[in-house]
């Protein structure tokens, strides 16, 4: 699991790759929380390089989403593919969170 973050004009862009599972979910949540505590309201998350996500990973995403919402911000996802997309769909996350095809679209919708 690798988590990179880049500060953009309207949001922070988080790029997660590898496995988001029971072992690594806390790393993802800690990185996101750091930006939220630092005052970032909006977040775009690129999951294009994610090979695997389990319910522990979904939990860390939902928890991050709730914190952002509580601050009046928004979280967008992009580049979901394959089984990661299927897990998003069957857990209902694809209807909770806006999902886009590209980083550019995910970021453009965050104002």
């Amino acid at each position: 699991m690798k988590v990179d973050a880049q500060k953009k004009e309207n949001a922070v862009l988080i790029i997660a790759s590898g496995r988001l599972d029971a072992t690594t979910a806390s790393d993802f949540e800690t990185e996101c929380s750091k930006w939220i505590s630092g005052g970032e309201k909006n977040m775009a998350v690129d999951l294009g390089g994610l090979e695997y996500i389990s319910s522990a990973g979904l939990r860390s995403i939902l928890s991050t989403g709730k914190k952002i919402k509580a601050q009046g911000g928004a979280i967008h996802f992009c580049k979901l593919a394959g089984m990661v997309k299927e897990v998003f769909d069957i857990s209902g996350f694809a209807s909770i969170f806006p999902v886009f095809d590209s980083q550019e679209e995910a970021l453009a919708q965050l104002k």
Partner: protein
Amino acid sequence: MPSSSETMILPARKDSLEQFRAFVLEKSQLFSHSPGFDYKIDLTLEELLINVLSYAYADDACSGNKIMIECHNPEPDIFCYTVTDYGCAFNPLEKDAPDTTQSIDDRPIGGLGIHLVRQMSDHLSYERVQQSNRLSVCFRRPAAV
């Protein structure tokens, strides 16, 4: 095609997950091997093992500190693995399915693991046998593409 069951027993600890994962994936890949099928095995196994560690062994009053996994082929086109623990009686299949249409505010954190297992497997069964919980998960061989 292996017809007899093969078994691994390890301590009920989070750091056993990787060994169990390697064991079950090795057996399942002899049966069927594709990114989608491997993912289903990987995910269901993680969810069930985390459940055992979180619930069956959550209470010190429950004896037992091991988890056993058996892989078997009850029929040539069916692969199953059975997770056995010796903790408190806990049937995860009794949990209500989460409401996946709730908004972000109403959505509780957690409760998705068993939902994913149900969606990704073809058959699930639970039995309490003496002092153990036995949960079996089965997969039909995917149709050749």
